[in-house]
């Protein structure tokens, strides 16, 4: 009844309206026993960081297909740090060009996933990341 569950916020920052990927991941994480908070479309970095704070999540998963990741993702990471949430692991999924992956990682993103990713890999990565 009282055990530690991994809490994950799945959010879509920016203006693209395609949330199939976000829903697939949310569902897979739920089936892996995690508690997934899904916030819906068109979130600003402020809204995402605020929700992550109130929900005290372990992981924030950002789904971006619009190409605005280099602007949006670092902004979310900065705001999380601004709230003192330094332990929160940020994952990104979507259409992210290879050369940008390294940039995002340098900004503090834990992992980046592209199309065709096996959800089992994501689950395993999250479990490992939260453990440490």
């Amino acid at each position: 009844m009282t055990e530690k569950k991994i809490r994950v916020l799945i959010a879509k920052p920016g203006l693209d309206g395609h949330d199939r990927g976000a829903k697939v991941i949310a569902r897979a994480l739920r089936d892996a026993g995690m508690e997934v908070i899904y916030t819906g479309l068109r979130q600003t970095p402020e809204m995402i960081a605020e929700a992550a704070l109130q929900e005290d999540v372990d992981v924030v998963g950002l789904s971006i297909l619009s190409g605005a990741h280099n602007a949006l993702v670092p902004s979310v990471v900065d705001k999380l740090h601004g709230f003192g949430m330094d332990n929160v692991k940020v994952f990104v999924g979507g259409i992210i060009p290879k050369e940008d992956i390294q940039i995002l990682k340098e900004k503090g993103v834990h992992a980046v996933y592209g199309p065709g990713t096996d959800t089992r890999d994501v689950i395993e990565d999250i479990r490992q990341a939260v453990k440490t």
Partner: protein
Amino acid sequence: MMSSVDPMAIRQGDRLALAKALTAIENGTPESQIIQEALFPYTGNAHLVGITGASGTGKSTLVNKLALALRGSKKGSLKKIAVIAVDPSSPFSGGALLGDRIRMQDLVGEEGIFIRSMASRGAMGGLAHNTAAFATVLDGAGYDPILIETVGAGQTEVEIAQLAHTVIVVEAPGLGDDIQAIKAGILEIADILVVNKADKPGAENTVRSLQAMLALAKGENSLLAAGKHMRQQLTSKMRSPEKISKGWAVPVLSTVATEGKGTAQLVQMINKHRAYLASSGLWQVKENERLRRDLEVIIHDLLVDQWERQVDPDQLEMVVSEVIQRKYPPVKAAESLLSIKS
């Protein structure tokens, strides 16, 4: 992850400390007890408002509008409003998809509003095991009122009635006929009935059948809809003691939450109910009952925990296998296991 929480920081409005405290309580860490102990003297002030009803009736959307209206918009006199939104955990994986925030986007980043999603984690009554403790911490943090949205509730998820001072049951048109309205269960716990999606066809029928249900079920105060003579006739025969709660007639309100229609009236009614509870003395009665029940539940949990730690697993397995072989029934087995260990 195991950063410690300072209860006084919560009092001073540190929201990260508050969020961490809620996590500690949800996970039952030793720290959670310290937090509750420190905050308990500051509790008992918040108006706990339950919002329940079937899935898809628009509870979250209504909460979205209610929270903003209750907080007010005048700078300098904003109230602190908390929302606890409970969604079900999967009985298979133990995981949960908590989606109430999708309908509450207007509230994110609004000054003074704190939303926390909560998975039911196997509890059956429409709330999670620790929802009451969440309310206590938010109360101690100065949030008032606290809106508690239950899981999409059917007919028997009535636990919210034991926790909340004011229970709002949300209905929507087209979910059942008038016989549904006179069945026992969730409608009985309403202090305020809301027919949401009132712009949909059939809404008037839903309002009417709810009013008719109230006229049948309750004492004289709810019979305002009925004629005066009928009222006198019925009430002379219907004096079941608990039903005659003088002074509060359960109202049926219509809302269209997506457009904010009717929410101002609902806020008024919530405040009216609070004033009624205070003036009638029922507020204190409810508080007393709730704390007594909290205590009983905790004693129950602690005894079970204690027993689980004491019991010899081999012996337990032996007894289980003997029950499986039908040597004696479970009730006998339980008695013998407990008396050996007590």
